[in-house]
């Protein structure tokens, strides 16, 4: 499946640094969004390392094929490209973890990551953290990823108390670079022409509700206009965090 993709990242109105990173690689049809955190100044280092490591690993896989070994355990239910994608996320986890351990200035850094690899008739997604991937089809918005945040955990368990949300939103329960090993969620979805995939960091979700995201996709039509507009909405709502939005439209 062909895609038309566009991404935008913005520092927002409150933060001193943009710790988000994203990559769009049209050649291997890969989208990656990462939201860095922690250390004294290294959130941006972690997110940049994450997106670049994944891209480089996937490029190696596409050029050298099966000779590249898969890192970590293989999920037999998932496709090969999904397993490759998850393995490249595990690799970037190891690299960030080792860097954080060995360089004092990078101690404590970590990042979320969402990788989307588009293939013939669908997409494989590898996911860690609280950035999100949405599928928009037939005027319906569907969040494909599960938030690995304390807020997400409480929602899942149904124990979230009203008003607690904002405080828990920033606490990640799974991230890249904080442990020697990390579990990577694999999600696979079919895709049809006309579908939109929206990947974003939580700077968007803190301010813009899902209903506005859906509305914007419906009104704006092109990935560029959607991504630009969603980041503008996040900033108009206070720009409390860095915001990154990557939008891809599927074409025949």
């Amino acid at each position, binding site marked *: 499946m062909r895609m038309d993709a566009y991404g935008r990242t913005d520092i927002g109105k409150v933060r001193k640094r943009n710790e988000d990173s994203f990559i769009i690689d049209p050649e291997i049809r890969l989208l990656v969004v990462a939201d860095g955190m922690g250390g004294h100044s290294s959130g941006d280092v972690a997110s940049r390392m994450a997106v670049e490591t994944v891209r480089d690993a996937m490029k190696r896989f596409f050029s050298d094929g099966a000779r590249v070994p898969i890192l970590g355990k293989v999920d037999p239910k998932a496709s090969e490209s999904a397993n490759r994608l998850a393995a490249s996320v595990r690799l970037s986890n190891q690299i960030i973890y080792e860097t954080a351990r060995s360089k004092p200035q990078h101690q404590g850094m970590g990042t979320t990551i969402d990788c989307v690899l588009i293939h013939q008739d669908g997409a494989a997604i590898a996911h860690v953290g609280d950035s999100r991937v949405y599928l928009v089809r037939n005027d319906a918005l569907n969040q494909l990823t599960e938030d690995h945040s304390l807020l997400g*955990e409480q929602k899942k368990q149904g124990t979230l108390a009203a*008003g607690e949300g904002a405080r828990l939103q*920033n606490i990640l*329960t799974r*991230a890249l670079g904080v442990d020697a090993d990390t579990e990577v969620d694999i999600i696979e979805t079919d895709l049809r022409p006309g579908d939109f995939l929206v990947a974003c960091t939580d700077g968007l979700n803190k301010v813009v509700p899902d209903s506005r995201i859906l509305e914007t996709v419906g009104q704006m039509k092109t990935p560029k206009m959607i991504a630009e507009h969603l980041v503008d909405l996040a900033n108009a709502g206070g720009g409390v965090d860095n915001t990154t939005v990557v939008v891809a439209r599927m074409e025949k």
Partner: protein
Amino acid sequence: MPKIILKFESAVIKELPLTGSVLTIGRKPDNDLAIDHPAVSGHHCRILLQGDIYFIEDLNSTNGTLLGDKKIIKAGLKDQSVIGIAKHTITFIDDRPACRPARADAAAGAPEAVRIPTAPPPPRPSPDATASGTSPNLKRFEKIGALRVTEGAVDQSDFSLTENSTYIGKSDRVAIKIKGLMAPEVAAMIARKSGAYVLVAIKEGYPKVNGLSVDKERSLNEGDVIEVGSTKMQFYLKSA
């Protein structure tokens, strides 16, 4: 003093301290807090202080009163609770030092709720900013505490401690149920404070950690064995 903040969409309209034991909210000017909006009923709802818990009570309003995203008739409030009235929201700020979020919960669920004893020190999470020196708005990573029941499981044997306070006891209203003929309704509580976990003895001296009775509270480390009644559990940390 507890207070409420009235917002329209995200703009703050008004801040009001809760001085008395009742505060009425509605469209008509005779309310303590008047909201001049056609979707607000004349006398829409009120905030009441009962015991040391504040409640929100709907006064049979046309469009209803929300707590979080649930429509309520009456419910307990805790710090940062958000009340929804048509397009307005009211945020309840409870800055009383002794307030315990869990109590409001228990009281809201059922009037006959388990009485959580008042003795143990409040497990109120400090606003993380001051405690850890970092802004609460910055993204950070924390492992979730969890308990694995090794002996005397009642219903499930794995519990994630994602809440600020998780109660352990024989009562049906606690999150972690235990065995034991003489076990108390509520024996202990595990508090989560900026990523660290503390076991608070509700019945003093009853819970044991690594074989030692806990009189007041004790911080938990990975691998600690908690013994309450005839149920044994091991504490560990995990990623989601």
